[in-house]
């Protein structure tokens, strides 16, 4: 029979009660990121209805009326009485139209006080040729047969449209689509959009490496070159040895082709290939392409430091570049093909400033050499080397280069704070 709280009871009798003395007033606010009353910014909303889809308490409803000039007048209401305040809609709303304030005074005597709503006008697309306004045709099952010179316009109901000519059916858009509304079949080259599932978020357009998907708001694209017919010709035998003769021209079935003379077998292309279709063996200098795996995305061509891979659309390159180390000494390589604006990996070392001759002679085979006098063994060059060819030991003050690993990319040269490396 023990009484645990005697001491506390007595001491508390004379101490101040721990009470917030809360008296009902509307001004008090919740904690900093408290999810209280919802505030809806109708202007930002694009009526993608993502929020409605994810709301567990299906508290969000919307009503669409047609305005006289044909636009959609959408009023979206948030019924706080059925909301669990989990803010999933806020997370899913790509455009920040939903915001949870810190006001927790949601006392209502009638139901209307709990309705938060906002209306906005959703513009119909400005110019539309009368015929061309597809009344949300049946999903474009197969890419419209590419007749020459046809103009591909973005659709007006917010759904993506495919530019068959550019599309390489790499199925990245299908994988990225959150709503799983896209089916792309690489084998028989079909691109199918599921109208009602598609939320028009635009993720596929962004992910598409070839920019073959147009979203409302992009400029229409005219089919430049006659698109390669859907049915790809029989896969070319992978040419091992460069055809004797003067020129190596890019293949027309969209697959990369190697320029053996320029290639230094640095295996970067193999590493970068998203589909893993390339095998490059440094030892016995072989470069094999796996036809059916290759998606023709062109990533290898871009990643190749030596521009030894040609993609359709590049100019043919003379096969007989000197077999020996092609890289001209300090001269920048040929200007790269016109680049898309996609973020290219760190710009290759084009702006290599000419290095005044030092007592230490830069090597001739394009690999870096260290100037011991300036080197402070800070190991940044080792760290920056993309292929890990440098070993620098601060304490033992050693700087060792692994020739066959080094690809001569020049990173170490660039990052060396003391300019102790010469290329």
């Amino acid at each position, binding site marked *: 029979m023990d009484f645990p709280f005697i001491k506390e009871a007595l001491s508390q009798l004379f101490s101040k009660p721990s*009470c*917030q003395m809360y008296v009902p007033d509307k001004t008090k606010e919740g904690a900093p990121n408290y999810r209280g009353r919802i505030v809806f910014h109708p202007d930002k909303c694009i009526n993608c209805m993502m929020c409605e889809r994810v709301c567990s308490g299906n508290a969000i409803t919307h009503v669409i009326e047609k305005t006289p000039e044909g636009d959609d007048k959408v009023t979206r209401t948030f019924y706080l009485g059925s909301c669990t305040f989990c803010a999933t809609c806020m997370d899913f709303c790509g455009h920040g139209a939903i915001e949870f304030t810190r006001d927790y005074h949601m006392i209502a005597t009638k*139901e209307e006080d709990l309705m938060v709503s906002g209306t906005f006008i959703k513009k119909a697309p400005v110019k539309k040729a009368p015929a061309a306004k597809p009344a949300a045709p049946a999903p474009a099952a197969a890419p419209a047969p590419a007749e020459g010179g046809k103009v591909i316009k973005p659709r007006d109901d917010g759904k993506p449209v495919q530019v068959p000519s550019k599309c390489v059916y790499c199925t990245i858009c299908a994988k990225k689509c959150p709503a799983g509304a896209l089916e792309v079949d690489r084998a028989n080259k079909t691109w199918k959009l599921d109208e009602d599932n598609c939320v028009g978020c635009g993720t596929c357009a962004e992910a598409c490496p070839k920019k073959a998907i147009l979203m409302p708001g992009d400029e229409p694209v005219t089919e430049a070159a006659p698109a390669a017919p859907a049915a790809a010709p029989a896969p070319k035998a992978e040419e091992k040895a460069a055809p004797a003769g003067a020129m190596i021209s890019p293949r027309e079935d969209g697959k990369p082709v190697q320029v053996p003379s320029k290639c230094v077998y640095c295996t970067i292309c193999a590493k970068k290939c998203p589909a893993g279709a390339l095998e490059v063996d440094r030892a016995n200098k072989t470069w094999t392409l796996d036809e059916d795996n290759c998606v023709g995305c062109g990533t290898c061509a871009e990643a190749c430091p030596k521009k030894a891979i040609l993609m359709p659309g590049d100019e043919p390159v003379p096969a007989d570049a000197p077999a020996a180390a092609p890289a001209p000494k300090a001269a920048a390589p040929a200007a790269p093909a016109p680049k898309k604006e996609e973020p290219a990996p760190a710009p290759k070392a084009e702006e290599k400033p000419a290095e005044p001759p030092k007592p230490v002679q830069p090597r001739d085979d394009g690999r870096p050499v260290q100037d011991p006098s300036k080197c402070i063994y800070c190991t940044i060059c080792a760290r920056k080397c993309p292929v890990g060819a440098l070993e620098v030991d601060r304490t033992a003050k050693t700087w060792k280069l692994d020739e066959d690993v080094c690809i001569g990319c020049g990173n170490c040269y660039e990052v060396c704070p003391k300019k102790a490396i010469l290329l």
Partner: protein
Amino acid sequence: MFKKLIEESTGKSPWLFHINAGSCNGCDIELVSVLTPRYDAERLGFKLAGSPRHADIVVVTGPITQQSLPRVLRSIEQVPDPKCIVTMGSCPQSGNVFRGSYSVAGPLSKYVHVDVDVAGCTPKPEAVIDGLYLATQILQEKRKGMKK
């Protein structure tokens, strides 16, 4: 001569009766936390009553399940006038995430006139105190309107 005194004290000593109609106990804990030292609703006269006969304010939590519907309605019926019905959280107000399920008998307002709803999926204790305070004012109006 007691009339004015009675009306005034009706507002000052509201007794709560808590009915859990299938709630996830989030609101139940929050309701009881209102009586803890930190928020101390007892300073405004609130007290949990044991039986509906003693209650003035009936606090309903949870989406009225089929099983609990007749019991909830019977308990509310047994509360003497003047009485107030407060629904706490979203569940009694709309069935919240459970709406449309075979076992949920829909919002309480379908069966009984709800005086005050404290929204929020587990409303903050301060919000609960606001709601109850509003309920006591409604109680006073009801008492004025009622001839003994």
